């Protein structure tokens, strides 16, 4: 890694994945996707982001159902989903795996089926999290991408398979093959994920850090030492 935090790199990748989107919504406990969205908002004036669990100035005045209604109306282009397990068919599991209980499916079962562009995000990249087949399908849909702490995958709609797009600085294509539990396609030469530019880092450490600090204070302290 370079002179930036891994969280900063991931936020930059997310901001780039948002190209052409008008409105992204971010669910609970997703500081890195939120940071990516706020970064995008800082250079893309037409872009809107709605934080589901914003503590102050929550954009929803119809209560917590408004996010889902908005998605049903087609007013949300992008949503982020994670999972205790994510499989090679794009399914995610937020309920139970290997005898362990996880929080539950939240709105994933719905959002994955309704929002046109779902970005799967899970920082941990391991055979434990990226599995051939999830034990429980919280949600299944057509993902736009899968971003982990090590790599970025795209989704091939025709084949219904992931394709490795890039590996993050310091990670090799072989390491990805070793640590990924599902099979996927890859180009002969796997490109490196472009690192954050100086201007991206400036935005992240300034306005984005402030905005994130209001809603994910713990995270902001860890990454930027701010709150």
């Amino acid at each position, binding site marked *: 890694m370079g002179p930036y935090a891994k969280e900063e790199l991931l936020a930059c990748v997310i901001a780039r994945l948002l190209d052409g989107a008008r409105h992204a919504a971010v669910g609970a406990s997703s500081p890195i996707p939120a940071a990516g969205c706020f970064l995008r908002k800082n250079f893309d004036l037409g872009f809107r982001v709605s934080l589901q669990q914003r503590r102050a100035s929550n954009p929803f005045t119809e209560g917590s159902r408004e996010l889902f209604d908005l998605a049903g109306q087609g007013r949300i282009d992008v949503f982020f989903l994670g999972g205790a397990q994510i499989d090679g068919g794009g399914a995610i599991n937020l309920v139970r795996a290997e005898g362990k209980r996880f929080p*539950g499916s939240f709105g994933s079962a*719905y959002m994955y089926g309704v929002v046109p562009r779902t970005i799967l995000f899970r920082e941990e990249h391991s055979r434990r999290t990226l599995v051939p087949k999830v034990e429980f399908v919280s949600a299944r849909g057509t993902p736009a991408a899968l971003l982990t702490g090590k790599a970025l995958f795209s989704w091939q709609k025709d084949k219904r398979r992931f394709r490795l797009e890039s590996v993050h600085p310091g990670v090799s294509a072989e390491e990805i093959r070793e640590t990924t539990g599902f099979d996927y396609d890859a180009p002969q030469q796997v490109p490196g994920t472009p690192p954050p530019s100086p201007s991206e880092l400036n935005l992240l450490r300034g306005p984005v850090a402030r905005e994130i600090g209001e809603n994910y204070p713990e995270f902001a302290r860890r990454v930027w030492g701010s709150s």
Partner: protein
Amino acid sequence: MEVVRALIRKKARNLRLLGVPILGLSADLLIGAGCVAEVETSAVSLGEAGLAPRFTDAVEKKSLLVKDATCPAIHCALQAAEKGVPFMPLAGIGASDLLKERKDWKVQGDLVLVPAIRPDIALFHARWADEAGNVWVGRRRELATAAHASRLVFVSFEEKKPGDMLEDEVLAPGVISSIYVSGVAHTPRGAWPLGMPGLYGADDLHVSQYAKAARTRDGFQRYLDEWVHTPRKNSSPA
């Protein structure tokens, strides 16, 4: 939260909790204290503080029944009860394994018909109650829907307002009218350690300390002894 602590002290048993649409610290405390037989929810989570440890433990030990749901299904189920219809249609969830477990959810083409949920009791904390019996919940409209759908509605509140908030055009939009309210209790800082928007923030440190302590049965018991069973002047240390 103060009501949750009181329920634990009163040794409530066999509660069935509904998350609207998710559950958090309150549920984890009640579950850990043995008050809960069943939960129906889209998730149980402590937010940034991570997994709900007593929920997780109870499920893994099979001492708690869980009806897994997804957020919009719970909203639909309460809106069906709000309207007095037996079900509400929901799109988009057809591919989820939830449908294998929720035999009460009927698939109809691309739609799932979610049956109405009519809770016995809606319980929540509000910013204001007034002399006319109305309560103000602001933009948390899911609480209004839950109140409309429920047989009884009990509300703890921060501050009493004189008069009738429905007479005030600016306050009225955030009001749940006394038509629905069965009882209110004045409970300043009653949301602590959670926050009350516009009044006080969440006590994040306390919640993360809870999350750590409650990883073990013993740690949870010590938390209860200190924060629930010990009489204190205020519900919060502030």
